[in-house]
């Protein structure tokens, strides 16, 4: 049942020009970043060769690529999640799902996984660029994998937050802007920590989406960071289920 809903979601995405436009734009921007970073590496290559333990190709090219990808997706994911539930509310198609013999969890997970399938496709295209460097150089594949997993986790949490906010409103644009606002706030949360006290800074730093991502980009695969994203995602999915249930029960 979840698969049926997910397949419909994915299909509808590709039937609209939005999905194709997003794929194209993201590839274009990331390709540019990739070329710039490659250029930087070429310039430094001679000097780096002399230093022991200097950053290699993967650190200089792949890590900034993933970091930029996360920021671009911070802008793009709200556009994809905004229509998930609020659009169904607006077009009055939600009763079809509500009156079908499926649970709210099925609906939320179906929609989430349908979108994640699309995002996974989008993400899979990104490491192809650094992997092309294998033709002429060597890469730290472990580091690349950690970065990719990090990006996947970050995007999974973006999508969960967006899905929840889409369930809250029946205006897709409101869902998009509030998702974007929430994600951006969580992204820059640790900036405030610099001026404040030690404890505040530690708490805010922990809450920030960015801190955990940076660790993964450095190749540090810490379960605490992974747990942060998993918990973040689960929390918003549960909230979305509860929101839909609340719709059916007392308003």
């Amino acid at each position, binding site marked *: 049942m979840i698969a049926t*809903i997910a397949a419909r979601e994915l299909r509808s995405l590709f039937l609209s020009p939005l999905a194709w436009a997003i794929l194209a734009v993201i590839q274009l921007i990331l390709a540019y970043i990739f070329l710039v970073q490659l250029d930087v590496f070429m310039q430094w290559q001679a000097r780096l060769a002399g230093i022991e333990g200097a950053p290699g190709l993967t650190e200089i090219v792949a890590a900034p690529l993933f970091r930029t990808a996360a920021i671009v997706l911070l802008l793009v994911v709200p556009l994809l999640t905004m229509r998930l539930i609020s659009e169904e509310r607006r077009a009055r198609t939600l009763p079809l799902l509500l*009156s079908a013999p499926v649970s709210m969890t099925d609906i939320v997970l179906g929609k989430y996984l349908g979108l994640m399938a699309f995002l996974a496709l989008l993400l899979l295209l990104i490491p192809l660029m650094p992997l092309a460097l294998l033709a002429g150089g060597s890469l730290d594949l472990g580091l690349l994998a950690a970065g990719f997993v990090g990006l996947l986790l970050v995007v999974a949490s973006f999508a969960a937050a967006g899905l929840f906010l889409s369930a809250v409103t029946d205006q897709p644009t409101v869902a998009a802007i509030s998702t974007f606002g929430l994600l951006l706030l969580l992204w820059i949360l640790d900036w405030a920590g610099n001026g404040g006290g030690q404890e505040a800074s530690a708490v805010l730093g922990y809450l920030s989406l960015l801190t955990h991502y940076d660790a993964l980009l450095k190749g540090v695969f810490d379960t605490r960071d992974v747990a942060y994203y998993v918990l973040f995602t689960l929390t918003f999915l549960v909230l979305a289920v509860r929101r839909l249930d609340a719709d059916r029960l*007392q308003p």
Partner: protein
Amino acid sequence: MGDDILVRVDALERYFGDIAAVQGVSFEVRRGEVLGFLGPNGAGKSTTMQIIAGALAPSGGQVLVNGVDILDEPRAAKAQVGYLPEQPPLYRELTVDEYLRYSARLHRIPRDGVDRAVDRAKHRCGLADVGRRLTGNLSKGYQQRVGIAQAIIHAPAVVILDEPTVGLDPIQIREIRALIRELGGDHSVILSTHILPEVQSVCDRVLIIHEGRLVLNERVEDLALGLAEPALRVGLRRAPAVEALRRLPGVLRVAPGEDGRFFLAYREGEDPTDRLVADAVAGGWGLFELAPQRRTLEEVFVQLTCGEHPPLAGGIAAEDAA
């Protein structure tokens, strides 16, 4: 639970904030019965139907579909219900075939049975020619049919149709009514409508709901019998005293209307027409209009839902109330 009662609604309540949309509504629907839901806009028809379909949870009371409680076992209950909301829930970007296949899967039809179910539903709703068209590009009538096809695709025990004939042309309305009658054969159908003759022609039982309360629950046949006595509408240019009309054999009541018109209710089988015409000629009353009149469902509806202001058309009803 008797196996012929498919839907049992007991003391249903639903509040939106402080507003009671539905209060203490109870009724039953038997197998093969077509139930017509009447009521003014905002009376609680759609809310009740949404609750039975499982799209909305009741604030109080109980709904059993084929003996299964809609709150305790929502999945099992919903599987037996097909629901067409007020606006057909179509994904505009899908074709009719894709959409129906999706609804079939949503209603847990096994993968190898989907094509057959889609074909049957399309055939029943006259959609065979539009399978490859986008639902968003179809006319309102066809969209409505796709909505109905979606509601019957899993051959549910109960089909709930919220205003299924809105926006259709007269020929489509006839077809949809025929379809509803046909559905009534093996399913139970609950439908809401504003078109009163539709209820009389399609339904076995009528419910009238007003301000969230059930004000009438009767079989259409009984209703036709009980729909007051036969009556005549008489127009007289030089009308005699009301007593003169009152004394005609068989006449039960006389209610004066506008412009020299009178409404005469008479006992079944004692039609005073002949005597009235004779008297009118003899007395020079200036008879200019004479028409048989039966109280229609419309008058019953208006009387029940407009409370203290019975309209002029229900002249007899007005006297009853007085």
